[in-house]
């Protein structure tokens, strides 16, 4: 097994999907000759040619709308939106169409489409290049949302997303792109959608996290006896695994990079407060980005959940 970083793992997943299934098409802005601005699609254009891997005009709604047509036609489009902050222009195509084609046509047309997008903060990039907006997509019935957190699950979740019969938003934490390296099996494999992963077992607190927050949480909680659940799929999320861990620990900390209010963490807290409250020994705490307009690089560290904030929340929970 080769040691790959996240970019390489996703690239390998794309390469294998293209090689295995001629219905798979990869497209977006700068994904062809340039190999993507983060090089995630590197060499794919060279290997599979212009028909399979191609550039589009600069039009996010257009990219997603075209992908909807391709998917309904029977292909397996894997569209890239260059940064998730530019998906807002495609919200209408995502929610009005990708999410609904199956229902509107009563199953005659479906939408097995993957939208990949670099996501999240911590890379000191320009405005709108660090958005954490997963919650929008999680509130769209008909849309699945996947966030990998390691090279291994990045590849497996990507291949599962491409194999899925419904539209999947696949969010790639840019901060992890080259930060994490691990052994990744060479052959194609699926990491099932809808299943969380226990990243670390523990007894006293359940920490729920996803994407690049997982890496922060693992560091922050190194000296705590906590169970760390990596959501992997946010929609549909793995209620059973989460609730089982809460039953065990009785304390919950949710760590999310997005602004607090109405973030995905709110749904996790609400679900626990509805279905497992009797197991709780303490309030459900959230450590999140603040409810502010996402700051530019000089201020961004103030906004991202930090080791200190996470530890303070853990200490607080453990006082109950």
């Amino acid at each position, binding site marked *: 097994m080769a040691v790959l970083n996240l970019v390489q793992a996703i690239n390998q997943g794309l390469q294998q999907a293209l090689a295995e299934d001629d219905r798979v*098409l990869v497209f977006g802005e700068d994904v062809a000759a340039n190999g993507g601005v983060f090089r995630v699609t590197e060499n794919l254009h060279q290997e599979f040619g212009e*028909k399979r891997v191609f550039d*589009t*005009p600069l*039009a996010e*709604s*257009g990219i*997603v*709308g*075209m*992908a*909807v*047509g*391709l*998917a*309904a*036609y*029977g*292909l397996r*489009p894997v569209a890239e939106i260059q940064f998730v902050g530019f998906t807002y222009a495609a919200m*209408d*195509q995502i929610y*009005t*169409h990708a999410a609904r*084609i*199956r*229902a*509107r*046509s*009563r*199953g*005659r*047309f*479906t939408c097995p489409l993957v939208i990949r997008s670099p996501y999240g903060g911590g890379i000191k990039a320009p405005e709108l290049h660090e958005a954490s907006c997963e919650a929008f997509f999680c509130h769209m*019935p*008909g849309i*699945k949302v996947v966030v990998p957190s390691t090279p291994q699950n990045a590849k497996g979740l990507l291949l599962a997303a491409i194999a899925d*019969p*419904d539209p999947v938003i696949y969010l790639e934490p840019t901060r992890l792109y080259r930060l994490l390296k691990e052994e990744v099996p060479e052959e194609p494999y699926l990491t099932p959608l*809808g299943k969380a992963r226990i990243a670390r077992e523990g007894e006293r607190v359940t920490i729920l996290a996803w994407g690049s927050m997982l890496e922060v949480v693992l560091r922050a909680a190194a000296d705590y006896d906590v169970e760390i659940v990596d959501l992997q799929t946010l929609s*549909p999320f793995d*209620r*059973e695994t989460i609730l089982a861990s809460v039953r065990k620990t009785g304390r919950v900390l949710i760590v999310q990079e997005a602004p607090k209010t109405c973030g995905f963490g709110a749904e996790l807290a609400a679900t626990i407060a509805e279905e497992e409250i009797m197991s709780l020994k303490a309030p459900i705490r959230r450590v999140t980005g603040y409810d502010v307009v996402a700051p530019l690089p000089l201020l961004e560290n103030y906004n991202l959940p930090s080791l200190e904030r996470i530890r303070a929340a853990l200490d607080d929970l453990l006082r109950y």
Partner: protein
Amino acid sequence: MPRATIASFQIERLEILGPQGEVDAELLPDLSDSQFLRLYELLVLTRLADERALNLQREGRLGTFPSSLGQEAAQVGSGFALKSQDWVFPSFRELGVFLCLDYPLSSYYRYWAGDERGLLCPPELNIFPINIAVGTHLLHAAGVALGARYRQEMLVAVPYLGDGGTSKGDFYEALNMAGVYQLPLVAICQNNQWAISVSRQHQTAAQTLAQKAVACGIRGIQVDGNDVLAVYQATREALERARNGGGPTLIECETCRMSDHTTADDARRYRDPAELERWQARDPLLRMQRFLESRGLWVASEQAEREAALKQSVDEAVVAAEAVEPPQVADMFTYTCAELSSRQRQQLKEAEDGRT
């Protein structure tokens, strides 16, 4: 070249049928007499099925309904040129196109009664679900066209839209993509002069809608949208060109919405009745009827009988539509994704426990 013209563009308009049904023989499409008759029959059927829908709506048997009155030629002329392998992306006012393609009228009615199953397209057709979000569906057509080119299938993707739809960003993004990839796509714009209460002039400063093609480097043409033969001919040419790799076309059919926007609208609030009178004189059915008459194909005495037969088919569609069992609550869940999530399973159970 200090101040030189570096590009020029012309927009053409095609008309074949005169106001009295006279034709320019050179332009007459290559159709048989029975095809001419069929065209006329489809125009009449569209009008009858439309009238019937309005009646059903008034009786509370359909929901809000958008009438095709006055636009029959634009719909039938274009729909008649389609091949069965072509993919159609309707907007919400294309009854005539559905009828041309033999889509079950009963299903069409069911959809407008508020039942998704009305959009379950029969396997032999490729009609995308009716699109309500104006102007957004041309992109799906672009996607299908791109897919077809990839699969080397000889189909054309044919989105329908209105004059209002030409103002949406997605309309432009789609035609621009179609131009870049030289896609087999023919967009049919029914310029019926109104987007609810907003007039064509208020929708854009462009002199024609056809010229919007220029922005995307594709072909654009205007046709007399009340002239079923002109619409047919322009569509056929564009389809053939697209099928043969000649790229996309935008066809503007200039017509007029003779009804209210929908049954929920009252056009008297914003429209001068004189406009309707002017357009009345260009009624698409009458023009085609006169054309048939001049060729000895239409006989006044037979009209009643023919209409009765068409009416009967409409009646049967109504009966069929209303004979369908109501949809099941499970359908809401079944068609959201291929599989239910654990939460959805819980919710379905709750919903089926009848707590509504």
